[in-house]
């Protein structure tokens, strides 16, 4: 392997020897695709006819008036087929799977959005599909489990470790080291061994390319700030990469959970608790103890509840190019309510982190300024969590009635 995918001191490829040949093959297929103009054309064709690209940007007029600061624009990744940005990456990798002649795909999922996107791609391209999902996430994102199964995927609940996203990634790797002859591992975020961080960011860069063009077309100027939530970092890499060469402040928002002092969060870059380590095939900031054992993370949003973070983002933070912040569950639920009430938009709890941070800062900006928020996905999957958070009595009655029907 020649290029081992380093970004400053982060990244690399720390994998069992058995996977080296497979990953080398993937690097080759990806490089060939990147250099083949027909590949991107095919990708764009799929994304504009099967998903909903280009997704629009929406002017949030009521929220703008409410805060009285900068003008708020929202990039609508929730309007993608399957309801999140995850499909951008998945369809790209799906085309690579076809090129490599493999017949089965596996994936990890936290929020279930990446799992649903992968199951969808597998249905369309005729691949067998297995999705690994932590048992905790299976319970809190049950609607997505239902759809993955309807789409023909096998969903394997992971009962090992902390039973969330990182543990699902470990299990997917354990599958892959056995099955790589016919199986591709569709990693869902800009993490893991090279070439995944680069490859996932490459497919997600479509978000930033479009957003930059759209805001310039509509407003004739760039935003002063761009906000994105950061789980593994794929939607953030996607939208930020459109603005790397511009005088635009980029703000990555991590899960503050119950607060940074509570120890119950997933703020690897925004808190002082993260430290550099090597796990899941790459080097980055992890939430780990002094022995190097990974800690349990926590967030109301399953998709942000992850112990590591993209090595590309870790490097950009060290360079000072991206600012990282964290918002708490409480702030996120408030931002979610305000957004649904004022704009009729339903952000995923992950995406609502970006909204919450923007709302905290927006009044400081001038009315002439523009901020752009990436709505990475829609919140339908969070129906149970949100119903509980707001103690929705009508919903509760309905669920009870439904349960009685099933019991009968």
């Amino acid at each position, binding site marked *: 392997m020649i290029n081992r995918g380093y970004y400053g001191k982060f990244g690399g490829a720390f994998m069992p020897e058995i996977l080296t*040949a497979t990953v080398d093959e993937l690097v080759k297929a990806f490089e060939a695709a990147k250099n083949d103009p027909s590949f991107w054309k095919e990708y764009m064709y799929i994304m504009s006819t099967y998903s909903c690209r280009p997704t629009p940007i929406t002017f949030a007029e009521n929220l703008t008036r409410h805060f009285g600061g900068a003008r708020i624009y929202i990039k609508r990744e929730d309007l993608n087929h399957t309801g999140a940005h995850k499909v951008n990456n998945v369809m790209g990798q799906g085309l690579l799977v076809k090129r490599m002649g493999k017949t089965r795909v596996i994936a990890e999922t936290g929020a279930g959005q990446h799992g649903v996107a992968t199951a969808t791609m597998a249905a369309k391209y005729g691949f067998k599909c297995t999705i690994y999902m932590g048992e905790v996430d299976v319970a809190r994102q049950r609607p997505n489990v239902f759809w993955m199964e309807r789409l023909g995927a096998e969903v394997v609940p992971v009962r090992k470790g902390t039973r969330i996203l990182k543990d699902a990634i470990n299990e997917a790797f354990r599958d892959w080291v056995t099955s790589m002859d016919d199986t591709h591992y569709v990693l869902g975020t800009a993490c893991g061994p090279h070439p995944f961080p680069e490859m996932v960011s490459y497919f997600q860069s479509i978000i930033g390319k479009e957003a930059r063009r759209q805001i310039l077309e509509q407003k004739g100027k760039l935003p002063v700030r761009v906000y994105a939530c950061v789980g593994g970092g794929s939607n953030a890499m996607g939208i930020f990469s459109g603005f790397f060469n511009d005088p635009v402040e980029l703000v990555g928002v991590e899960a503050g959970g119950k607060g940074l002092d509570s120890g119950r969060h997933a703020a690897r870059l925004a808190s002082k608790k993260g430290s550099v380590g090597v796990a899941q095939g790459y080097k980055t900031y992890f939430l780990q103890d002094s022995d190097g054992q990974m800690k349990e993370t926590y967030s109301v949003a399953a998709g942000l509840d992850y112990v590591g973070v993209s090595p590309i983002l870790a490097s950009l933070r060290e360079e000072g190019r991206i600012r990282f912040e964290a918002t708490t569950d409480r702030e996120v639920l408030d931002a979610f309510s305000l957004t649904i009430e004022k704009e009729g938009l339903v952000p995923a709890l992950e995406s609502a982190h970006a909204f919450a941070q923007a709302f905290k800062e927006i009044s400081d900006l001038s009315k002439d300024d523009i901020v752009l928020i990436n709505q990475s996905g829609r919140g339908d999957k969070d129906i149970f969590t949100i119903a509980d958070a707001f103690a929705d009595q009508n919903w509760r009655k309905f669920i009870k009635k439904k349960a009685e029907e099933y019991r009968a």
Partner: protein
Amino acid sequence: MLETYLRKRLEKKNILLMTHIVLGYPSFEDCFRIIQAMVAAGVDLMELQIPFSEPIADGSVILHANQKALANGVTIQGCLDFVQKVTHAFDIPFLIMSYYNIFFRYGVRDFVSAMSQRGLQGAIIPDLPPEEGKDYFNAMREHKLAPIFIYSPTTPDQRMKYIASFARGFIYCVARKGVTGKTTSFSGALTKYLARCRKATNLPLALGFGVKEKADIDYLEGKADIAVVGTQTIRIMENEGIASVGDFILNLR
């Protein structure tokens, strides 16, 4: 030097036996008794696994042992203290097996130095390919410890030679795809693979993953220099108790 020891041993035995335990599982006291039984039963060398929260190359049995050990509060310092006792008490080579983050977090140079001070002879790190291992094998060379590297059936000939150029002691040949603890078929494909390994290096060859009974080891005689028994001893211990481990090892040869 580890290789010299192995070669000497191989003058008397057709194949050597390396066993594996997870430190602190089920407890350090039990680990000590298991090592005692293994050494008495004629094990030639042992790998001592420092538990890690994300053991990506391990199957469910060893994974469970890692998690149990950590849940019991096993620390690196605890492992190093224990290892010190073990290398004093027993006269066979001991190696550390763990994942790279354990070394990295401690500081690679400091960790290697700590291994050396405690009389360890080498280390196996399944998630550290030679490309990422510069600090590690420099430190290992300085302390005259053996960095054991891994071959797999998917490793091309050219890469086997490349890997061998960093390795000392022996090469750990993984028998098949997959994680530890699954079944291996001891058949023609394995023979061919081991012949390929043999051609790529002059170092002794260890064969691990799925070795669990006498027939497997008989099969490996003349094809590999060391048979590695990992998961199976943990299974025996869990199912039949620590007292059965010694007999199990005795019956392997």
